[in-house]
């Protein structure tokens, strides 16, 4: 039991660290699209660690499935909203103003 709790603790701290790094990315990156990269990918991993920690502690199979379902839905929502914001940012940028750093 104590072993599970230690593993859970490590997973929770790792998850929070990734959330913190994702938020740091929001400040460090200068461009909307780069910020979305940081938020979607890093936060998804952070949520994954936290979900994993909670699943270890699930009282029943149904609760475990419910927690996993939360992750799946959050993943779909984050991918979809990332796509929509990226598209809006791209449209705003316009096709004439060449984005900095793009080549090829």
């Amino acid at each position: 039991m104590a072993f599970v709790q230690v593993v859970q603790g490590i997973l929770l701290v790792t998850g929070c660290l990734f959330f913190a790094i994702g938020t740091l990315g929001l400040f460090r990156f200068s461009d909307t699209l780069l910020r979305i990269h940081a938020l979607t990918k890093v936060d998804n991993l952070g949520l994954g660690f936290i979900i994993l920690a909670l699943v270890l502690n699930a009282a029943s199979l149904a609760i475990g499935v419910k927690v996993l379902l939360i992750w799946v839905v959050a993943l779909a929502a984050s991918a979809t909203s990332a796509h929509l914001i990226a598209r809006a940012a791209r449209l705003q940028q316009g096709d004439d103003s060449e984005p900095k750093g793009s080549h090829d």
Partner: protein
Amino acid sequence: MKTVATILGRVILLLLVWWAFTEGDVSGLGFGLVIAILVAAVSMRLYPRGAARIRPVQLWLFVLFFLGRSVVAGIDVARRVLSPSLPVDPGYFTVHLTLPEGSPRWLLANALSLMPGTLSVSLDGPRLELHCLDTQSSVEEDVRAAEQKVARVFGLPLPDETCHSEGAR
């Protein structure tokens, strides 16, 4: 007959979701059954039975592939954020998908957003525009690998290697 099987499959799937929502409580099952049937009926209108069937084994393989890649993606971005020099080389990249319209394309576009270095910006017919964190990395190969996995999930013939793509602008 096949439509009945599809509806039945969807009702069972929704009941499983309901079971998870109510944390295994049996008292709400009757209400859940009504909701599941209604939602299945609506889903048949919104997402009619497509030609492509989902292969369960391939779907699980795709899930494993996706999980592995998304962990790599998270660590990759975290590494770049934490590195003092902020090593990014952003740019746009356009690929022409060989997957058919509908769910396969959407699954690929959304999955790519959570995979290393890529973010789907716009999907216009077969033309998928990606934003890349690092244009020096092998974006093209990554996209093609993911595309093949998605094709297998839907039991579609694998996209041929000769299809062309272009680096955008």
